């Protein structure tokens, strides 16, 4: 039966994560010239809380739903974003069994993020040229659509200044030290892509939520024509629509993450839904929030723009939402999601 409350573990993880994120002095990395320096202390605290291993007792393992809730908090603060690909990549290594064990151990020893190279949905690149956390990574997992799984350890990638101020790294795809771990089935690759979509959707739910908060705070205090601008119906109603999209993003992401364990037959379909909706909401809600600030919103001194840029940047890594919409539409036509009217 429907229950939208957080379970005990979820609640504990979210509260502990909030404490870590609130105490962070920055996003988790610092740019210095052409390099990015990882905040290793913060990273250690995040991995202590969020990373479990195959040896962790079953009742203490975190599932995709808990990771989704964590991703929402990361989205709100824009702190610890390399954790998203780190989690997706580690779960994939675990899913491929013994082939991934050594790489998992190496990641644990490195004390740094595991970066992920996986083609965006519509990508024409056989090998993705950029990783969203590569500039602070100690290792890289490359998963190609044909099922080839490669692993590389070593120095972080070269930093690439970017739209979202992420620690983006340029991938050394022709490095001779790449090791092939396995050739896996397309299903496993598709699951990893779907998990990433769900977690990015959850990050965007957090991004929208915080953007909206900033906009409401400003709308309640900034006065024009002698009244708070939030009393103007055109602005207030725009923010109300933004609230619907924000909560919608959160609900769809949570449902998809829940389905990973509890309704696996719908997981892929719901992951496309969560991501396709989040990609649109991320752009629209954060743009509306920037707009509330007028000219100030366009400057880097005001934080709303950081959410606007980040929401878009993350989606460029994941892919064009139209492809997800088309897959959902195809499912509707083929009636693969139990939409038949029984007895009709």
């Amino acid at each position, binding site marked *: *039966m*429907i*229950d*939208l*409350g957080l*379970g005990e573990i*979820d609640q504990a993880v*979210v*509260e502990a994560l*909030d404490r870590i994120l609130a105490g962070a002095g920055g996003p988790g990395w610092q740019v210095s010239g052409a390099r990015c320096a990882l905040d290793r202390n913060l990273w250690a605290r995040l991995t202590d809380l969020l990373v479990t291993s195959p040896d962790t007792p079953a009742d203490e393992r975190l599932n995709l*739903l808990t990771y989704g*809730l964590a991703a*929402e908090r990361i989205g709100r603060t824009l702190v610890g974003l390399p954790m998203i690909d780190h989690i997706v990549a580690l779960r994939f290594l675990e899913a491929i069994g013994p082939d991934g064990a050594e790489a998992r151990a190496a990641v644990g020893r490195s004390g740094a993020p595991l970066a992920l190279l996986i083609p965006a949905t519509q990508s024409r690149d056989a090998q993705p040229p950029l990783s969203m956390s590569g500039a602070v990574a100690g290792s890289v997992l490359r998963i190609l659509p044909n099922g080839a799984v490669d692993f590389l350890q070593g120095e972080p990638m070269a930093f690439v200044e970017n739209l979202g101020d992420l620690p983006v790294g340029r991938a050394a795809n022709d490095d001779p030290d790449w090791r092939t771990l396995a050739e896996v089935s397309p299903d496993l690759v598709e699951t990893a892509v779907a998990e990433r979509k769900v977690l990015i959707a959850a990050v965007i739910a957090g991004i929208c939520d915080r953007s*909206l908060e900033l906009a*409401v705070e400003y709308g*309640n205090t900034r006065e024009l024509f002698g*009244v*708070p601008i*939030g*009393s*103007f*119906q055109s602005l*207030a*109603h725009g*923010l*109300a629509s933004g*609230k*619907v999209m924000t*909560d*919608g993003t959160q*609900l*769809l992401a*949570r*449902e998809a993450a*829940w*389905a990973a364990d*509890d*309704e696996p037959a719908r997981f892929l379909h*719901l992951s*496309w*839904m969560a991501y*396709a*909706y989040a990609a649109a909401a991320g752009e629209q809600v954060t743009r509306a929030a920037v707009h509330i600030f007028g000219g100030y919103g366009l400057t880097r001194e005001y934080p709303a723009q950081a959410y606007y840029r980040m929401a878009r940047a993350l989606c460029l890594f994941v892919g064009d939402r*139209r492809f*997800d*919409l*088309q*897959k*959902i*539409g*195809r*499912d*509707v*036509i083929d*009636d693969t999601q139990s*939409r038949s*009217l*029984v*007895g*009709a």
Partner: protein
Amino acid sequence: MDFSLGKEVEDFRLVVQDFLKPWIVETDGVEGFAGKAVEPDLQRGMGDHGWLSLESEMSMDWNMKMFVFGDEASRRGFHLSSVATTMMVGFTLSQVANEEQKARWLPGINAGQIRIALGYSEPQGGSDVAGARVRSSFDGEAWAINGQKQWTTSAQHADYIWLLTRSQPESRRHGGLTVFMVPTSTPGITVTPIYTMAGERTNAVFFDNVRVPDENRVGEVDQGWKVLMAALTYEHGGGNVPGRSLTGWISRILDHGANFARARGDEVADDPWVTEKLGEIAIDAELAKLFVYRTSWAGAHIEKADVLGAMAKLHARESLVRASDKMLQMAGLAGVANAGCGDLGPDQGVASALQFEYIDAPTGTVVGGSVEIQKSIIAERGLGLPKTRNQGPRKPEPAQATLERQAG
């Protein structure tokens, strides 16, 4: 966290599908409701099954079963407006009526034998409920009611009108209002049909010196706004009254669209524009369902959830308009011809159904409080923005605050 309805509720879906069968007719390959004239029979049938019980209003189980009922019925084109309005009033009566009134009306509502229409809107104002002008005055023996109500849907089948009146002629806005249960058989009432562009009937109801005994007054004299607040809680999402479910309505449009695409074959079904639009509608339908789940869950476990209900309504109603527009565009010229006209081929029936949905969908953005009312509720009570009439910022309502705290 659990997003499933559970076996018992899913099994109930099958029961509902069996129950609805006798009232389904097929026209040009499209299923639909046999017509408003049989709604009273259907309502009695629901009463016989015990589905109209007012005792379990906030139980999650009942709420979800009624969601499933509405979802199934609306997906097949049933517009059970009378069931919905009767239940809303029934829940309100169970809260605010005196014991004699409860004994008089509630058993009939539970049994599906009493139908009640809402008498809120007037010609000069639909969403501005507090601007009511229909006049009520007590002469020592009975109340005399004069004036006109508008958009009184289902009044032609109703046994009572749940009537908001102004009992203090000098009062303004929320003061000086009184609520009555007015039998439609009372002399002086004239029900005049008004048809929407989609051919759906609503009504104007005229009250010409209608005499109503004081025992039909609900709540205190001049305190009708308190009664209205209780009633509007149900209209704004406090429970899933089994009326015209917005989720089922969106699903119906999606069904029509998928049927049309299948009937046209690969030329349409492989068009990326078509699959994209179907994908967008499917997401809107999924989310409409999730918003209902959340409103019901919050209503059952926390407290009244009118902001969450407003969000559910806003999303679903705007989705309806978007969905019907996209699917009529897909139907193209086949959607131009009216039902039964044109003889344009085997998919003419579903194309005409899409045309109907297009001209019916704007109903959703108006009835039961326009989408602007929902946006103001969300902005002011949910986000804490100032009232648009500049009465200062408000705190978020407890249910919303609680949910957000739970989300961390």
